[in-house]
């Protein structure tokens, strides 16, 4: 059983410059840049998480800046099995933004999408030690936690420098995904057959 691979589309959401790309680069390439360049060049990135009963392969879509003027296309949300909504604990607007991204996702995305809300620190303007960051904290952890719980959302505050924690987030999401519904891996030119037979995960 352990060799079955399930593919899932995962989208990143959140206001500009909250650390979306930093998070995904950390997870996918295990690289860390204190000042991650705005997203350029990649259509989407992939990374796998091995669970006991299956291997989950994430196809991770970054916003590519189209969130800046709220100009994400419906295509972006479509078929996403999971979403990570990123905010910045030193910026209350980004937390309000995160809540509105949750609403937007619930309106546009699939009904069963697994949502995680994440705040990332120790990168960019959030560099510095934890104590220093706590002094600049503007979003109360408990408040964010309560909101997440109310909406059935995973919630985590994590450091961009700590790859274990970032990986743990994706493992949590992978565990929450229903492995019975498999998303097909993208082909070079995926033309679907006329009547698609339902394929099982294995």
């Amino acid at each position, binding site marked *: 059983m352990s060799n079955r691979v399930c593919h899932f589309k995962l989208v990143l959401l959140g206001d500009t410059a909250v650390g979306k790309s930093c998070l995904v680069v950390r997870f996918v390439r295990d690289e860390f840049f204190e000042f991650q360049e*705005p*997203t*350029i*060049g*990649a*259509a*989407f990135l992939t990374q796998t998480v091995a669970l006991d009963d299956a291997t989950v392969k994430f196809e991770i879509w*970054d916003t*590519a*800046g*189209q969130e*800046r*003027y*709220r*100009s994400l*296309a*419906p*295509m*972006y949300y*479509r078929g996403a099995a999971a979403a990570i909504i990123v905010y910045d604990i030193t910026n209350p607007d980004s937390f309000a933004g995160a809540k509105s991204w949750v609403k937007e996702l619930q*309106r*546009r995305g699939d009904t069963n999408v697994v949502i995680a809300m994440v705040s990332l620190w120790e990168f960019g303007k959030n560099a510095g030690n934890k104590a220093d960051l706590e002094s600049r904290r503007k979003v109360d952890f408990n408040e964010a936690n309560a909101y997440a719980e109310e909406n059935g959302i995973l919630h985590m505050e994590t450091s961009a420098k700590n790859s274990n924690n970032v990986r743990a987030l994706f493992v949590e999401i992978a565990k929450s995904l229903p492995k019975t519904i498999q998303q097909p891996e*993208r082909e*070079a*030119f*995926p*033309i*679907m057959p*006329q009547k698609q037979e339902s394929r099982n995960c294995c």
Partner: protein
Amino acid sequence: MEALADGEYDAIVMGTGLKECVISGLLSVQGMRVLHMDRNNYYGADCASLNLTNLYEKFNAGKPADNLGANRDFNVDLIPKFIMACGNLTKMLLHTKVTRYLEFKSIEGSYVYKGGKILKVPATPEEALRSPLMGLFEKRRFRSFLLFVDRYDENDAETHQGKNLKVMTMRELYDSFGLQPDTHQFISHAMCLELDDVHLDKPALATVKELQTYCYSLSRYGTSPYIYPVYGLGGLPEGFSRLCAIHGGTFMLNHDVDEIVYNDQGEAIGVKSGNAMARAKFVVGDPSYFPKNKVRATGQIVRCICFLNHPIPNCGDLESVQIIIPGPQVNRKNDIFVCSISSSHAVSAKGIYIAIVSTKMEGNDADKEVIPGLALLGHIMQRFTMVATTYAPVSDGHDDKCYISSSFDASSHFEGDVEDLLSLYKRVTGKDLDMTINADSVEADY
């Protein structure tokens, strides 16, 4: 005046129609800084696929009826077109790898209207031999004509059978195979997808190439030569917009352009939106973003979007079909196109079929022009009719730095629109776009 977005760009593109999105995608891949704006809060401009809310709003049609289903299940194309499986748009999708963002499904059936009946366009030589479209002897002539077209290679004189298609007209070519006028009509309209009969008296080469594209596309997926993106045509501009964005392009939906700003030489140098301005070396856009003196009207197209609670009758209950009504069959110059798609392409709620009837206007009464098409649909739950004036730019854009696309044409496919797109690309960049990619041989790229 404030800076609009980052204030300084190489190109500002207006309108997120397919052509504009392809251009902004290609420009930003080449390293240009692009600002792309649209007055609507959705992608696609004239060729958007709308959900029920946006559709009813556009037609001032009140609230959607409850029996249609959920808003989000609908992606209703404003311009109905199918993609030739091996045509130029497919090549462009492969060239730019935008196929990574989209899924396509073939269209199940292709039909033609003849003598009051809807007949299947034969997809295989066996079907052609069984088809009631032609008599027995005509079928043999049709077969040898198709064999000639299949083998014909412009650069190989041995395949020409002594015919010079650069001189010989299409009518002469048909006659040389002894084909009857009824068969000319069927081949030209249902397979070469000519909109009228003008091509008959022009050199045959262009029409023969169209037929080759049709046959090649047909052989690729079987039942019809067409493919169509799951979730509607709106996915095409969205996909190219993502291509642009991942290469650094900036997108602003819901931002209208109030004014194009010119220098003393009359060259566009930027745009104003509200109290903000962005500068650029040139602007690109669809005709609706430019002053009336920079475009000319080229005609009118009527398009009727209909909701049905059943497949189009007499076409094998298929989930997706195209029916071509050759103009001469119903005493018109221009063909009428009927297409129907449904939940199998994720454009409607289950049980609802979207049928779109379109044709070039020949008179002033839009409702009258589409009657032969509507007559094929059976019971119609709801109908939205729009008459669009089509525009083309009056100049190539070199003098005023305003590069303007033409409106989408009346055909049922994108081949002509891609021609316009390639011309726009060349006007903007001074270069031809490499389109030599073969739809069959790209897997190695990945």
